[in-house]
């Protein structure tokens, strides 16, 4: 007998989305210089949520000038004063977290369960954490009087719009820099709500500037001669382009790029926990996570048992209205991303991997992709090499720990990895050999503002979070 769930929708009445928004420059909302606007839609319904000003090169210049003007006073403030502004922001985020969670779910398509329980608490935590650093920078290990860099140009992706904003803005402001931030074109709204939080916090004008727009605005920001620091989270291809752009300049650069994380399950792993970890590793945020555990490496002897459990578990996942509190899997962020995932999954089939999805009805409007699992995958398969950035898991097998390590490291990326085993010494031995910036043992996809996060190899350079995250914004 199947139990049906009653709908449990979160009310969207708490969030008041205006029909149009401007760019946020020098403390004011303003139209784009050329008057361009674009629409942002809800990925789960394709409903137009709002119309947003679209920044161009001229707007970038205005925003950088505003940030430069604000820098003088902001960097001269005692750290204890900057700290209080950041604490205020953290508090206001907590106060408005339900509103922001609903907003983020509407604009991004991810389940309210995740925005409410993961994104928003982490956003507030990042501001709290870095607030406390602002007046203690001389204890951070970068010398007695570390100085800010100046104007930070920051470009963030659409998968965790507000969290990525927090990762970028909190350490930048704590260290005395001012920022110009470009949110992604499909998810501009929470950044614009953040502009309102800056207003409520009484943050001085020009310290934070928000420029919704497309890649051209990001490129103009990165290339602007008066930007001192570039921080980017996004695709490896764009990261490389940015690295070329800043070559030969004095701009400090940090990049958080793609990944193809290996999740390694040994034969002595606690299977039920491992299955939860695998699900969390690849289906959290519809797999649209740079550190997703998209390659499952399972020891051959337990393959059948693990896959049976995994398929059983996947059959219980609930896909649908992201605002429903029981929803596990929400919508893919955009039609473009859906097309990419679809094409890569089709390529997986064409190359001979075996595709499986649980019985799963997809809503009629919006962008949806059923949780998908591929078996019979080899290392040469495209789906085992290219980042899919969607709810698609490739299953590979191994026999010995050495083989697991070799396969896990056989990638151009080096962002994340997972290890599942009850044997402590094996965890440490394998973790030691994995070339990845974060290794989760017997857990996956855990984040914390105190913990540095970032990649090896082509997953980028620099770390965000923790004491290490300060370095990116200091002249050291």
């Amino acid at each position, binding site marked *: 007998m199947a139990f049906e769930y009653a709908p449990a929708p979160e009310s969207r009445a708490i969030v008041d989305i205006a029909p149009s928004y401007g760019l946020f420059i020098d403390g004011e909302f303003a139209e784009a210089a050329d008057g361009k606007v674009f629409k942002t839609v809800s990925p789960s319904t394709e409903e137009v949520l709002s119309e947003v000003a679209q920044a161009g090169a001229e707007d970038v210049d205005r925003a950088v000038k505003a940030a430069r003007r604000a820098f003088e006073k902001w960097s001269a403030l005692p750290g204890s004063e900057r700290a209080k502004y950041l604490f205020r922001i953290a508090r206001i985020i907590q106060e408005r977290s339900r509103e922001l969670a609903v907003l983020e779910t509407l604009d991004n398509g991810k389940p309210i369960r995740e925005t409410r329980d993961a994104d928003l608490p982490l956003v507030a935590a990042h501001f709290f954490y870095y607030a406390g650093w602002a007046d203690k920078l001389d204890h951070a290990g970068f010398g007695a009087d570390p100085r800010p860099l100046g104007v930070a140009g920051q470009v963030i992706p659409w998968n965790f719009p507000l969290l990525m904003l927090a990762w970028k803005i909190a350490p930048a402001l704590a260290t005395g820099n001012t920022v110009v931030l470009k949110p992604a074109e499909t998810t501009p709204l929470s950044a614009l709500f953040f502009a309102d939080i800056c207003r409520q916090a009484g943050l001085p004008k020009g310290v934070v500037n928000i420029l919704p727009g497309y890649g051209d605005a990001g490129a103009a920001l990165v290339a602007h001669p008066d930007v001192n620091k570039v921080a980017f989270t996004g695709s490896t291809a764009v990261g490389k382009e940015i690295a070329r752009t800043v070559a*030969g300049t004095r701009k400090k650069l940090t990049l958080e790029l793609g990944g193809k994380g290996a999740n390694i399950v040994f034969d002595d792993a606690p299977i039920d926990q491992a299955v939860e970890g695998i699900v969390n590793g690849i289906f959290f945020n519809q797999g649209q996570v740079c550190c997703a555990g998209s390659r499952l490496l399972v020891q051959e002897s337990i393959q059948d048992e693990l896959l049976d459990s995994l398929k059983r578990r996947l059959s219980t996942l609930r896909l649908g209205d992201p605002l429903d509190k029981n929803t596990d899997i929400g919508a893919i962020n955009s039609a473009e991303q859906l097309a990419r995932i679809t094409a890569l999954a089709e390529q997986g089939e064409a190359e001979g991997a075996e595709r499986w999805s649980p019985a799963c009805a997809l809503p009629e409007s919006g962008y949806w992709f059923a949780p998908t699992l591929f078996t019979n995958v080899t290392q040469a398969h495209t789906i085992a090499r290219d980042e899919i950035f969607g709810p698609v898991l490739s299953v590979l097998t191994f026999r010995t720990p050495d083989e697991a390590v070799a396969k896990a490291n056989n990638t151009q990326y080096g962002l994340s990895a997972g290890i599942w085993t009850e044997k402590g010494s094996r965890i440490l031995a394998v973790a030691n050999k994995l070339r990845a910036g974060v290794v989760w043992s017997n857990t996956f996809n855990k984040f914390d503002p105190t913990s*540095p996060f970032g990649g090896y190899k082509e997953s980028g350079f620099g770390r965000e979070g*923790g004491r290490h995250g300060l370095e990116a914004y200091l002249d050291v």
Partner: protein
Amino acid sequence: MSDRLRVFKTYKLYVGGKFPRSESGRVYEVTDSKGNWLANAPQSSRKDARDAVVAARKAFGGWSGATAYNRGQVLYRVAEMLEGRKEQFVREVADAEGLSKSKAAAVVDATIDRWVWYAGWTDKIAQVIGGANPVAGPYFNLSSPEPTGVVAVLAPQESSFLGLVSVVAPVIATGNTAVVIASEKAPLPALSLGEVLATSDVPGGVVNVLSGRTAEIAAPLAAHQDVNAIDLAGADEELAKELEIAAADNLKRVLRPQAVDYVETPGIERMTAFLETKTVWHPTGSLGASGSSY
């Protein structure tokens, strides 16, 4: 009776623990600061550069996997060997940089002390820049530095020995392996350093020394997909930009050229520039509901 005729040294590259001539068979003339002939140094080719990367990659597993204590002793051993060869280096540095014997001696002393300084860092850097993070949840996590891999090092052009050691020692102290391009004009101290390294317990391939035209050798290194980082200390502005663009292709870690007074005691930046941070998480257990015994 005539004076004894001096025996000249044929300077060779140091690659993979061996002393090959350049694969290209080319040499170029090295002169002292007054223009007098000193030696014909090997003029490395792109192939030499690629061979050096292969050697450095091969050595990486063992060197990065050695204990920090062991690496420290090996580095200290280099200082011991340098001390024993001091006179040779004083002569070479004096010739290369046009210094008086006493000034060259001071440079060599400072260089040996620099090795000793870095030898002491191998087992401390992890404690200084890594550590446990106070996670808000039932997890234990630990951030540790790890070497980034094979590092191409363009040694400074002017400071042929102190500058050279100041950019090589930090790279290998932390467990990276290095492909070093010696100062183009004054490569001899670097090539002689190879001889010291070969007799210092430093495993073959950990440091590879090439001489020749910096721009010619650096280009394939900056573009090499199996090089993880590049120190542009010895590049001029134009070359540095070109190499940085090439380095973007596999997102190498780039240390841009900067004004450095090599006499000053360095900070740790030259080490941290070529380190990754790995954060390992694990759930923490609970001792159960009884709760009495702790």
